[in-house]
């Protein structure tokens, strides 16, 4: 586990030096523009606009980083053959994968935390004060981070057995499908054949449910998120990531490098 930590810290250093955190500049500019624009809008909906815009931006920037850098975590190391010298050290392949995953999640955590801080500052600027109920924004940000960790795990899995382009397509495809898992569960199974109903139910549980992590509407209106949902989402993300990373480790540990 210590060795996975060494890989994780280097992955974080790589992300910083590859200027991933420059996305914060874009976020800062966006929020400054929003803060000015929201002043022109009538009183009462500033919080809704600012929070919705801020959380959406945090989510979109995070998803982009998770997909593109998540896929590159392993594929770049294989393409450039930087992995060769590393795997000649006493490092197991699963430790390498876990370290890569941990490094990018750490990067995303730092990035997301900085953006959350920016969002709170803009809220303070617009509302002139922060209330206890505004803490729900932090819960929403935490859920976004859980979602991003899941996307990174999926990107890592796909990049272990296919080309980077296909891995990006698979990850994005699964993310989009994962946003509509609830709709799949709500399909009228009574009009389906038993086999189709069973398949639909099975599929809806197998696919990652990204909609679970979306509490943007609650946050925008300052409504509290139940503690049970926080626990449920945390457990869901941990278990799902563990399963996906285990699958990635199994695939990667048998892969012949070029």
């Amino acid at each position, binding site marked *: 586990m210590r*060795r996975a930590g*060494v890989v994780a810290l*280097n992955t974080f*250093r*790589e992300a910083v*030096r*590859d200027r991933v955190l420059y996305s914060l500049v874009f976020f800062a500019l966006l929020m400054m523009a929003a803060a000015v624009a929201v002043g022109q809008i009538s009183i009462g909906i500033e919080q809704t606009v600012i929070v919705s815009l801020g959380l959406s931006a945090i989510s979109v920037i995070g998803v982009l980083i998770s997909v593109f850098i998540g896929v590159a975590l392993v594929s770049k190391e294989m393409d*450039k*053959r*930087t992995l*060769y*010298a*590393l*795997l*000649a*050290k*006493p*490092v*197991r392949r699963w430790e390498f994968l876990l370290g890569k995953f941990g490094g990018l999640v750490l990067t995303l955590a730092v990035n997301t935390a900085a953006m959350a801080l920016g969002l709170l500052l803009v809220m303070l600027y617009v509302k002139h004060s922060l209330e206890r109920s505004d803490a729900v924004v932090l819960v929403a940000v935490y859920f976004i981070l859980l979602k991003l960790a899941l996307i990174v795990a999926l990107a890592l899995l796909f990049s272990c057995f296919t080309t980077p382009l296909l891995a990006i397509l698979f990850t994005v495809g699964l993310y989009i499908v994962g946003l509509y898992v609830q709709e799949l569960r709500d399909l009228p199974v009574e009009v389906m054949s038993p086999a189709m109903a069973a398949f639909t139910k099975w599929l809806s549980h197998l696919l990652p449910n990204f909609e679970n992590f979306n509490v943007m509407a609650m946050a925008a209106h300052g409504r509290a998120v139940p503690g049970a949902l926080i626990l449920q989402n945390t457990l869901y993300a941990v278990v799902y990531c563990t399963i996906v990373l285990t699958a990635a480790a199994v695939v990667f540990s*048998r892969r*012949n*490098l070029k």
Partner: protein
Amino acid sequence: MQGSAIEIENLTKEYPFGFLHLKKKTSLEGLNMQVATGEVFGFIGPNGAGKSTTIKLLMRLIFPTAGSARILGKPISDVEMHRDIGYLPEQPYFYDYLTAAEMLGYFARFQDLTAADRKDRVQRMLKKVGLDTAHKIQLRKYSKGMLQRVGLAQAILHDPKVVILDEPMSGLDPLGRREVRDIILELKRDGKTVMFSTHILSDAEMLCDRVGVIVGGRLRGVGAPGTLVDMKTQGMEILFELRGASNAPLLSKAARTGACYQLHVAEEELYAAIEQLRGAGARILSVSQVKATLEEFFLNLVEADRAQASAVEVSGK
């Protein structure tokens, strides 16, 4: 021979190719080989012969179709055994956002070293490979030769017992090659086992206790460079000067190089040839035995392999 540091048994690697991966190309065929503890072993062969495949199999970067290998008595699947192995990949490429010192520091963290020991070793290694003045420059700005040096440094950083180098002289200028040769000899003096692949046969002849010649995925010969080459010892070479003209019949067979002439004769014809040359007024400068070089031995094997491959192609088998 002392105990074996590297033991390879029937190691085979096939790559599937074509539609549905139904066809197979054999990259390495039933390799059996041992490298003794403390020896410098050269692995020579043309491009695509199977040298890098063998080394990648030993480092578990790829997996064998059949066969097994042990390093220091442990199966190659044992990752912990990598504490005692140093490896330089062919045409190494490292994290280009790191400086040489950072990269070595990063790799050192995987070994059981204290922070002070890591720092000390990194500095010593950089000095050893001649990069002590460039250690603060990011690797993206390094030349191919500098990357090769830093690759060598990371391979020996943790004082491994076995060092496996894939084309260590590649990309180096003559000075760099000499430095790498010196490092290999130093490793040998320290009792390390060194196995390296190379195209540069003179380096193999100069450095290796034994060499293995691999062509077309099969090992064609293993032994001390002299032993392999002695099998092909042939004839004598006479070097002489000649002032004035002469009609001696042997002179027509001699080749002129500058002010001297070179003449190749069979061993049993040596004395008769010397008599004839002296009779023609030649001054004999030297007489030496002609030994086939490792290069000739190697080229003969490659040519034979190509001829065999062509024959198989023609016969349609």
